[in-house]
C-alpha cells in the first residue's frame, strides 16, 4: 500500500501579521513557521495506519512552497513518514487552491497512492479546497472533516463531523482521500531518536514548473487587518489593578455580581 500526506507550513497564529510589499499576503519576516495544525492529525493517522498494517505501507509526505517548508517535512519524517517531496519554487508566487491541487495531482498521478490524507483546511487561508479538489482531479472518492478513521481490507470507514456535535458514518473504497479535522487522534511528538533517524530519510525536490501548467482561478487583490470594531475596554498593566478595574466594571455594567 502507498499513502500520501499533504502538509502545509503556516505561521504561528499568535504572530503579528504585516502585509508584504505587494500588499497581497503577509510579510515572512519575524514570523515563526510550523506545520498546519490540521495536517498534524493527517500525518498521525497515516503513521498509525502504517503501524496497524505492520509497517508495510510506504508513507510519502508532500508540501508545496518555498525552502522553509523543508522544516515541516522533517517534522513529518520524524513522526514516522518514510520519505518527503518538496514541490519548490524559489519565486514563491502565491498560488490559488486550484493550482496547489493541480501540482499535487500531477505528482500523485504517476505514484498510484491507495490513500491520501490532507488537513480539513489551512490555518492561514482556510479555503478547505485543496483536498477535495485533488481527489476530484484524480477521480477518486473523498470525504471531508473526519474525526474517526478505520481501515480494513481496502475499505475505509470514517466518522464525519457535522455541526452541533452530530456525526455521520461514511464508508468508501480505496483509492480514496480524507480530510482530517481537529481531534481525530493525538498527534505524537517526534522523539530525539526518531528525529535522528529522520535525518537519513530522502527529501526529493521537484521544481513546481515541472508539475504546474494551470492558470490561477482567483487572485488576491489586497491583504489587510480588518477595521477594529473596538468600543471594548482594554485593561493593561499590573494584575492586582486589573482585577480591581474588572470588578468595578462588572459591578457597574452587569447584574451578576452579588
Amino acid at each position, binding site marked *: 500500500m502507498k499513502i500520501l500526506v499533504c502538509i502545509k507550513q503556516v505561521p504561528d497564529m499568535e504572530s503579528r501579521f504585516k502585509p508584504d510589499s505587494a500588499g497581497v499576503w503577509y510579510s515572512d519576516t519575524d514570523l515563526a513557521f510550523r506545520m498546519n495544525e490540521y495536517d498534524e492529525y493527517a500525518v498521525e493517522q497515516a503513521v498509525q495506519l502504517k503501524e496497524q498494517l505492520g509497517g508495510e505501507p510506504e508513507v510519502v509526505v508532500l508540501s508545496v512552497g518555498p525552502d522553509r517548508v523543508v522544516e515541516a517535512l522533517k517534522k513529518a519524517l520524524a513522526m514516522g513518514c518514510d520519505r518527503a517531496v518538496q514541490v519548490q519554487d524559489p519565486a514563491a508566487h502565491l498560488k490559488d487552491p486550484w493550482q496547489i491541487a493541480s501540482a499535487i495531482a500531477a505528482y500523485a498521478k504517476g505514484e498510484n497512492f491507495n490513500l491520501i490524507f490532507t488537513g480539513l483546511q489551512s490555518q492561514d487561508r*482556510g479555503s*478547505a479546497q485543496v483536498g477535495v479538489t485533488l481527489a476530484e482531479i484524480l477521480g477518486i472518492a473523498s470525504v471531508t472533516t473526519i474525526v474517526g478513521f478505520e481501515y480494513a481490507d481496502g475499505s475505509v470507514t470514517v466518522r464525519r463531523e457535522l455541526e452541533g456535535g452530530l456525526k*455521520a458514518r461514511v464508508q468508501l473504497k480505496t483509492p480514496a482521500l480524507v480530510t482530517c479535522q481537529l481531534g481525530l487522534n493525538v498527534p505524537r511528538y517526534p522523539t530525539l531518536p526518531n528525529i535522528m533517524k529522520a535525518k537519513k530519510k530522502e527529501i526529493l525536490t521537484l521544481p513546481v514548473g515541472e508539475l504546474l501548467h494551470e492558470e490561477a482561478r482567483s487572485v488576491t487583490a489586497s491583504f489587510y487587518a480588518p477595521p477594529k470594531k473596538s468600543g471594548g475596554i482594554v485593561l493593561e498593566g499590573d494584575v492586582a489593578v486589573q482585577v480591581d478595574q474588572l470588578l468595578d*466594571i462588572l459591578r457597574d455594567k452587569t447584574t451578576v455580581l452579588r
Partner: protein
Amino acid sequence: MKTLLIAECREGKFLDTNYELFGFADKLGATSAMVLVGRQDDLPAFAGKLYLADAAKFGEYNPDLHKKLILATVDQEKPDYIVFGHTSYGWDLAPRVAAALKAPQLSEVVGVADGGFELPSCNMKMRRTVKPQGTPVLLTLQGGAFPVLKPGGTPQVVPLETAGEPGVNFLGYEPAVAKDVNLSKAEIIVSAGRGIGKPENVPAIAALAKALGGELGASRPVVDGGWVDHAHQVGTTGQTVSPKLYIACGISGAIQHLAGMKKSGFIVAINKDKDAPIGEVADVLVVADVMQFVPALTAKLGK
C-alpha cells in the same frame, strides 16, 4: 446578475441558516433560484424557482450525486454565482462542483468588495480581498456574515433527478452525546482555552466559575486534548450559549468559537495577545497572563 443558492437539509429539516443565502443575494442585488435535496413537505418561504431532489432517494450526504444534481441545474440556470453556506455540507460539496466546472471558488466569504469578495485569513486576524477569474464563481459564505432574509411565498418546484453510483456510502447519523451539562441555561460561563497551557490548570478556571456561581465552558482544543469533557464545549460543534456574563480565558476567538458565544450579554476576555480576534467581541479585554490573572480574581471574589 443571477445566483444559484444551494440549500442544505439535515436530519430531514430545511435549515434556517439557508436564509442567509437570500441575505447575500439581496446584498448583490441579484435574482435567485435555489437547489434543495430535501423534502416536499418542508419547503423554503420563497416565491422563486426551487429545483428539488428527494432526500429519501439521493441522501443527505451523497457528494457525487449532489454534485450531479447541481451541475444539471447550472446547465439550465447559467448563474453568475453558485452560493453555499461554509458548513460541513458546503465546504465538502463546493470544491467538487468547482472542479467539474473548472470554475473559481472563494471560501468563507465575509463581505462584498469592489470587484471581489472579502475572505478572512490567519484566524480572522487579517482579511484578503480576492478577485475570481472567470464565471461562474462558487462561493461559500461564513455563517452569520450575511443577514437572514425570508423572502416569503411558495416556490415553483422543478423536480430534479440524476442517475449514477455514489462514490461513498452514507451509513447513518450518530447523535451528539447526551449532555449532562446544560450550558444554555447558565447565567455565567467561564471558559478555558488552549492559552491556559496545561490540563493541570483547568481547576483554577473551574474555581473562578464556582466563585462566580457559574459553569465551566471550554474551547475545542481543550476538549480534543481530553482536559475537559465535550459536554462543556462552546462553539459550532459544541453548544451555543448566551449567558449574562461570559469570561474567555486564553481563547483566541476563532469564528467557530465566536459563533457559540457572541450573543452573550457581557464578554470578558483574558489574553496575553492584545490583537487576539476575541477582542472584536469582548466588552473588556484584559491583557495578562491568564494563570496569573484568574487566581488573583478568584481570590478577590472570595473576600
